[in-house]
Every structure is written in structure tokens, then in C-alpha cells.
């Protein structure tokens, strides 16, 4: 039981975070809350990738000693790190654009509540 938890908890926790983030994006009426949900979702995916790249007994992927022969087993898998660096930057870019949309919508409609926005548009 304990071993099972020790081996699986990162996946369970990230699954919970993903669902929380999606819930925020879909069910919350405030557009700001939708964006907060979006950020939670993105971080959750990043944690998921990094948790999957763990290697017991390995160290940070930096070659410390010049000239010493590096053994691949000594390092954490660097590929997910690279992918997630990209994903973080993409996430920030999307958040920035979404916030620009928010400011503009607020200016035009005077509200950030999804229901009343849709009402105003339908009218």
C-alpha cells in the first residue's frame, strides 16, 4: 500500500490539479477565474511531465567536472525539462494575450461576468 502510494502519488496529485484547473476554466463565470484555472492546468501538466522524468539516485542534469566521463544514469532525464521550459513560456504567452482580452472586454462591456457578457452580445 505504502509502496503503491510512493510510486504513484505524483500522478494522482497532478490528475487532481488538472481536473481542478479544467473545472475552473469551464464552470467559473468570472473570466479572471477562468484564467486562474488555466494557469493551474498548465502548471499541473508541467508537474506531470517532470514527475514522470524522475530517476532514483540521479542528479541535476549539469555536467560538473570538465573531462570526467559522464554516465547517463547519473543524470535526470533532460528531455522533459526542455519540453516543459517551452510549455511554461507558451503558457505565459497565452496568459498575457488573455489578460489583454480581459482589459479590452472590461473597457467595452464594463463587466467580466460571462453570463452578462453573453446577454449583452445576444441583445
Amino acid at each position, binding site marked *: 500500500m505504502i509502496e503503491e*502510494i*510512493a510510486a504513484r*502519488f*505524483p500522478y494522482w*496529485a497532478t490528475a*487532481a*490539479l488538472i481536473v*481542478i*484547473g479544467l*473545472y*475552473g476554466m469551464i464552470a*467559473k*463565470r*468570472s473570466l*479572471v*477565474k477562468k*484564467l*486562474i*484555472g488555466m*494557469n*493551474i492546468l498548465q*502548471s499541473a501538466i*508541467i*508537474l506531470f511531465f*517532470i*514527475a514522470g*522524468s*524522475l530517476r532514483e539516485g*540521479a*542528479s*541535476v*542534469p*549539469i555536467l560538473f567536472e570538465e573531462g570526467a566521463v559522464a554516465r547517463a544514469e547519473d543524470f*535526470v532525464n533532460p528531455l*522533459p*525539462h526542455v519540453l*516543459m*521550459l517551452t510549455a*511554461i*513560456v507558451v*503558457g*505565459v504567452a497565452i*496568459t*498575457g494575450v488573455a*489578460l*489583454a482580452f*480581459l*482589459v479590452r472586454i*472590461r473597457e467595452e462591456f464594463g463587466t*467580466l*461576468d460571462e453570463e452578462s457578457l453573453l446577454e449583452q452580445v445576444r441583445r
Partner: protein
Amino acid sequence: MVWELELALFGLLVVSAIVALQLRDLIAAVAALSVYSFMAAALLAMMGAVDVAFTEAALGAGITGVLFIGAISLMHRRSVD
């Protein structure tokens, strides 16, 4: 690394995510989101992803928080949900 510590941090992460979504005061919600991001960064550093942790702290927690606050400070702070 001690996996129990990671587990505890993950628990805190879930709690702060829920708090960030449920707070009515938007500035407070954004603050909670920053807390969430910083804890995620700490967790990433524990898992050996120092580069990712650094980026998450600088971009995810720092810049995102600043942009959120910058945009929200021009708006109503209360959300209807």
C-alpha cells in the same frame, strides 16, 4: 529525495489551487495563484528540474502575477464566480 515531503507539498499545492479558485477577492486569488506557482517551483526543484523550477518561478509566478495584478488593478476586484 524524501518522497513524503514531496507528497506533503503536492497536498499543499492542491489546497492552494482550490483556494485560488474559490477566493472572491481577485487580488487575493491572484496572490494564491502566485503561492501555488512558487510551491510548484519548489517541487520542481526538489525533483531535479532546476531549470524548469527557475523558469516557473521567474515567468510562471513572477511575470504572470505581475501581469494579472496589472490588469486586475484596473477592474473591479470582486468576482461573481
